[in-house]
């Protein structure tokens, strides 16, 4: 009897331990239904188009390197690399034995072909502009690729840490000039394209030959476009979907609190960035003091609370605070109505000037908060809600006063600041990204100097000076970082995302997601 009790106790302990371990041990198999916001625009991995397309492509295609969830560059198809001292030659050693989805082994020739395809203007690939400084791409041997630049460009290295410049596909798998294709070409990613039906979804199956052995866990992913946000969340609750992106913020506090016991949430903390853009070449915002007066009237924290349900944090630069090594701790400007009014007086601008504040349709909540903050500080504001196309047209011709805009935080200052604040961009007849029309030659000199510095720390030091100039001149007011949320059924395990709300990364995301069922 005594032995039986001991045996039962031992068995109980072993079984409990087994169930604890078993619960965290990823299981292979299963089909995940992922509700995405928009249907695919293109099946061409060389075209970025809009964000959903880019995120979906990252499930099937890979580049030479990737960013991990913390923004650090990690090896992907390239396992190691060297950069020549003059910064002109990048040599990548590719992984052995990586197979495309069609079974063909990936070689340096395929990488060269993919890069050349992106650089060919006839193909109108997104990578065309990212690769404009590339002089040549050479396959030194079967697993060594060499990229030679026309001139040193330190940011080029981080540019390659994604599939934006070019995804690696088999040589000849996309025809020249055929940048619009009917089916995805083969990739090397964890999931393989199976079929796509417009408005019904994209079906991907597990890549059994994936170079990261043991991954992925899921047998199949179905990406279903469900445009209506509330329906997407309701469908998740009903069990018709297993995972959704862009969870309505109104439900996030309840999700976090546990009001939906079957659902969990994952946060992409800095996926969105909001700002106000001044048109600085015309009155009233050609007056820097008046611009500062507007900034002084704003309360970013209240803006986050009122417009984004408390989700988000004030921003001062385009960098993600937690992971960007170049993030500068610029002081947050706190709302001070008296100071705002004093600045208006100092500026000499008529205080009865009506500020025309424009935003896209759908951004009414945010704008009402901004309007209230400005009007209670004594400004006169007229709100306009326009279609995206009209806003874009006005910005390109400088026919606006103050615009509310979204963007994405950038991993390197060279990804934003030269394009958005340089004199060259600002003086174009048709503005591309420097919508404000801002120009400060001192800023341009600093940026030009920084972009030639190889050492990252030194480069960031010079960039800091440039960013401080912009902070003082204030052609734009950085407002807030806004998170995005994924919600998923509790049976979905292992799903992670990064600050950019990516669906998959070399080190996480859908490749490591499994179903506990």
């Amino acid at each position: 009897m005594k032995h039986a009790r001991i045996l039962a106790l031992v068995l109980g302990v072993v079984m409990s331990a087994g169930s604890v371990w078993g619960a965290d041990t990823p299981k292979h198999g299963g089909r995940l239904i992922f509700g995405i916001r928009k249907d695919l625009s293109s099946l061409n991995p060389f075209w970025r188009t809009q964000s959903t397309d880019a995120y979906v492509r990252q499930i099937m295609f890979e580049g030479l390197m990737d960013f991990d969830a913390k923004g650090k560059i990690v090896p992907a198809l390239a396992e190691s690399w060297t950069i020549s001292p003059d910064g002109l030659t990048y040599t990548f050693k590719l992984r052995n034995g990586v197979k495309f989805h069609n079974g063909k082994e990936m070689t340096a020739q395929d990488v060269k072909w993919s890069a050349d395809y992106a650089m060919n203007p006839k193909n109108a690939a997104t990578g065309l502009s990212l690769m404009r400084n590339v002089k040549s791409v050479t396959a030194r041997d079967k697993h060594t690729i060499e990229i030679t630049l026309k001139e040193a460009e330190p940011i080029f290295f981080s540019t390659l840490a994604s599939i934006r410049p070019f995804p690696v596909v088999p040589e000849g798998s996309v025809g020249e000039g055929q940048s619009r294709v009917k089916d995805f070409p083969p990739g090397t990613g964890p999931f393989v394209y199976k079929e796509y039906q417009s408005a019904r979804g994209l079906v991907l199956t597990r890549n059994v030959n994936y170079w990261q052995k043991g991954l992925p866990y899921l047998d199949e992913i179905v990406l279903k476009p469900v445009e209506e946000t509330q329906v997407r969340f309701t469908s998740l609750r009903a069990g018709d979907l297993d995972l959704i992106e862009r969870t309505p913020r109104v439900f996030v506090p309840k999700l976090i609190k546990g009001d939906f016991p079957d659902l969990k949430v994952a946060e992409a903390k800095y996926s969105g960035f909001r700002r106000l853009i001044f048109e600085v070449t015309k009155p009233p915002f050609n007056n820097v003091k008046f611009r500062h007066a507007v900034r002084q009237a704003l309360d970013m924290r209240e803006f986050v609370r009122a417009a984004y349900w408390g989700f988000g944090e004030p921003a001062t630069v385009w960098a993600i605070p937690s992971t960007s090594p170049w993030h500068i701790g610029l002081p947050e400007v706190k709302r001070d109505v008296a100071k705002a009014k004093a600045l208006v007086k100092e500026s000499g601008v008529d205080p009865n000037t009506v500020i025309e504040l424009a935003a896209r349709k759908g951004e009414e909540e945010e704008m009402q908060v901004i309007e209230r903050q400005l009007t209670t500080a004594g400004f006169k504001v007229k709100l306009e809600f326009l279609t995206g196309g009209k806003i874009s047209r006005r910005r390109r011709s400088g026919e606006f006063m103050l615009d509310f805009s979204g963007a994405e935080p950038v991993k390197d200052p060279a990804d934003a600041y030269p394009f958005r604040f340089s004199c060259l961009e600002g003086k174009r007849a048709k503005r591309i990204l420097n919508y404000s029309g801002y120009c400060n030659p001192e800023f341009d000199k600093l940026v030009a100097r920084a972009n030639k510095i190889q050492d990252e720390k030194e480069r960031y030091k010079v960039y800091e000076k440039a960013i401080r100039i912009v902070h003082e001149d204030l052609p734009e007011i950085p407002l807030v970082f806004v998170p995005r949320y994924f919600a998923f059924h509790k049976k979905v395990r292992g799903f992670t995302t990064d600050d950019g709300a990516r669906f998959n990364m070399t080190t996480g995301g859908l490749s490591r997601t499994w179903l506990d069922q």
Partner: protein
Amino acid sequence: MARYFIKRLIQLIPVLFFVSIFVFLIIHLIPGDPVEVMLGEDDARASQELYQAMRKQLGLDAPIHIQYLRWIWHVLQGDLGKSLRTAEPVWDMVMARYPATIYLALSAFLVGTLISIPAGAIAAVKQNTAWDYSAMGFALFGISVPNFWLALLLILGLGLHWRVFPTMGYVDPTAHFGMFLWHLVMPSVVLGTAMASSITRFVRAEMLDQLRLDYVRTAKAKGLPDRKIVSRHVLRNSLVAATTAIGLQVGRLLGGATVIETVFSWPGVALLVLESVYARDYPLLQGSVLFLAVAYVFVNLFVDVFYKWLDPRISLE
């Protein structure tokens, strides 16, 4: 009848010509550049070179009248063009999505007529009773309530809380007919209810007019049962006028129900048109709207023929 058909087909040509010009111009007046939409407006590295390369590749660099002439020339040869985004022929894309719209339209039509005709008839026959008030109350509700609100209500109630039907989605009938029907119920109830609301009032009004006519009094005097008078004579005569309203509704349904297709993620042609508007996919938008215009005209033609069957006295000429 054949002469009538030919005459209507000939009339179609100028109609479609003006529709094609109108559609083409209106679409190009929509603010927004398809290349900018594809590139992503705020791509920090977007360059003029890429922008121009894409415009050239997509044929958007040509003057607008050249773009129209190129397009209409292909249309006359039966080619509606290719999607800017996917390079798929517009015809194929529309044909792939149209069955879903047809299924939805027909099922909504079925729901709508199965509700509206009996309800309208009963309301007329039992005027000023609880039956009448209920039917008119239902009609008022159906007309007043926005269909997307009703859709969301059904999704919450029947989809989420009672788990009777799926909240969204579509299954091809050839893949699994039962699942197809299961997914079809809620969107067709929403659309059918909206249709039934307006038709019910129409049928009731027509029947009330018919019931006052002499032939009804004569039939009653001859001893014909009320049921036969209503079903064989009054209802049939009432439907002649109601057919116009029903035909217009069906034509509208066959053009796709944009809101319902969006809410239920029903992959019909209306959703396709909406997607092409967002993406500024000009060929897809032009081709699909032209296709819908043709479909609408043919539905009206069918309604006219159906008129004749209902009432042989009607001359199609």
